[in-house]
């Protein structure tokens, strides 16, 4: 059993291992901490935070689909102030990276949120959600507009020295163009992908199953799409990528790294197996041993094409 270096460096953000818990799928960490040891993970990404608290969308917010689920939570969150006061004290107890995910309705709001959070030493990086498809004034518009993504990256970059990660929307033709813009404007990394826009209707009531009408599709169903987006970014830009989408087990995680991810996030699987992160990490370690991979980061973009 060789000793494997599991650490990864994503544009200046150092992680003890590439396993991250995805935004919106672990709240602020307290509930999942009862099922898994957060200290063992590379990091945790918070639920998207906005300047003011948000109540979120009315029910029904979720529905299952073939090998996936739709959600329209509506960025329900406590807001940055309460987050600092009530959530950080708990989160800072863990020896794992804390990445704050920010959602906003305007470029200024993004900047303001980051400004408020920037002094918190417990926060290791910012992930800017320009792509949450659920809330009208939020994500989607920004995520599909190259110049807006550039502007947000540039403005946020200018007020923080912490790593800035832009979380990209998959609902675009060429995601690598967006990754390029992020790079050009000083972003340290991109994470891909957020959910795809989907819907589901009840054929008896003829009403949408989700009150918000459309929701974000996540889970194994989107894995092939996520892999293709990450591969496209990897082959067309040289910005570090955090791969997200449909990862259920260590094999999926290895596949995600092979196509180009420096680290990865797991989302939907946490609902089914809150200890999945650690199980995935253990699976990757055995995989590396078997394949004589000394540094897990060597997996990144190791595809043979």
């Amino acid at each position, binding site marked *: 059993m060789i000793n494997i270096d599991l650490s990864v460096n994503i544009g200046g953000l150092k992680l003890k291992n590439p396993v991250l818990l995805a935004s919106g*799928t672990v709240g602020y960490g307290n509930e999942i901490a009862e099922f898994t040891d957060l200290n063992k993970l590379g990091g945790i990404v918070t639920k998207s935070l906005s300047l003011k608290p948000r109540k979120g969308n009315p029910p*029904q917010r979720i529905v*299952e689909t073939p090998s996936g689920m739709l959600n329209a939570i509506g960025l*329900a969150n406590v807001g940055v102030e309460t987050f600092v006061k009530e959530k950080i004290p708990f989160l800072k107890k863990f020896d794992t990276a804390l990445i704050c995910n920010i959602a906003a309705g305007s470029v200024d709001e993004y900047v303001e949120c980051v400004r408020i959070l920037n002094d918190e030493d417990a926060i290791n990086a910012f992930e800017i959600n320009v792509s949450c498809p659920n809330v009208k004034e939020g994500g989607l518009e920004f995520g599909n507009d190259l110049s807006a993504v550039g502007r947000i990256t540039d403005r946020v970059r200018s007020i923080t020295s912490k790593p800035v990660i832009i979380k990209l929307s998959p609902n675009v033709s060429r995601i690598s163009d967006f990754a390029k813009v992020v790079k050009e404007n000083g972003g340290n990394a991109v994470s891909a992908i957020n959910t795809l826009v989907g819907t589901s209707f009840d054929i008896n009531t003829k009403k949408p199953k989700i009150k918000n009408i459309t929701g974000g599709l996540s889970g194994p169903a989107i894995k092939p799409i996520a892999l293709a987006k990450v591969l496209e970014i990897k082959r067309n830009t040289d910005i570090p990528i955090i791969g997200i989408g449909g990862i259920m087990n260590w094999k999926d995680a290895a596949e995600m790294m092979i196509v180009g991810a420096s680290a990865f996030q797991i989302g*939907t699987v946490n609902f*089914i197996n809150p200890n999945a992160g650690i199980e995935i990490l253990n699976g990757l370690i055995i995989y590396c041993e078997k394949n004589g991979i000394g540094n897990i980061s060597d997996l990144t973009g190791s595809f043979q094409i």
Partner: protein
Amino acid sequence: MYIEKASVESVKMIGEDTFLMKVLSPSVACLARPGQFCNIKVSESDFPLLRRPFSICDVEGDYIFFLFDIHGEGTKILSSKKKGDYIELLGPLGNGFRYDGEYDTAVIVAGGLGAAPFPFLIKNLPEEKNVMSLIGGRSKRNIVTHGLKNVVAATDDGSEGFHGTVVDLLKNELNKLSAAKIRIFACGPNAMLKALQNFSVEQNIDCQISVECAMACGFGICQGCPIDSASGESYLLVCKDGPVFNADQVKL
């Protein structure tokens, strides 16, 4: 809360499309309280993707019972389990019923499979409490009485017991024990819970309702199961703040 691989001891059909499952799950069993539920992984594969939430129907030593009917793919898989098969429980989840304190008679009001959580509750009630179980269903065959005490049935079509809704039945029965100090424990379809809520709030009768809704995680991380607080200012989470609420606590 645990994640426990539970071996199936038996699956009995106790009504048309209604099944009683007994599984061995020591750690969950010893923590379980009446009104709590488990989020169940029904298969070892990734299909179906999400867990399925089921009330803890009863506990006997290291064994847990679930009462369910076939609804879709997940419950179909559950119903086909054989002795020795495994399912994976995540639980116990939720807050459960509050059944101590000042009342003489526990009045159980259930619609259809809403009867599921009550065998365990009845078993745990302090002996001095009287129990009356009012069970409603569309028709005779929808009346599930497993593990209940002093059952009075109500059917929409009058094929058994009282002809009408279980809430109307409740109103009748209450006259008889108007004197007694009662507490209502209810579970069932939203329409029924709404009617009951209106009645109990206006009569200000002590009443707890167990609510159902679509869920993903079952323990508070997905925010998928909101319910309006009575004030309407904020949402509560059915899986974490519930599934049992005081009737005056939430908007249905």
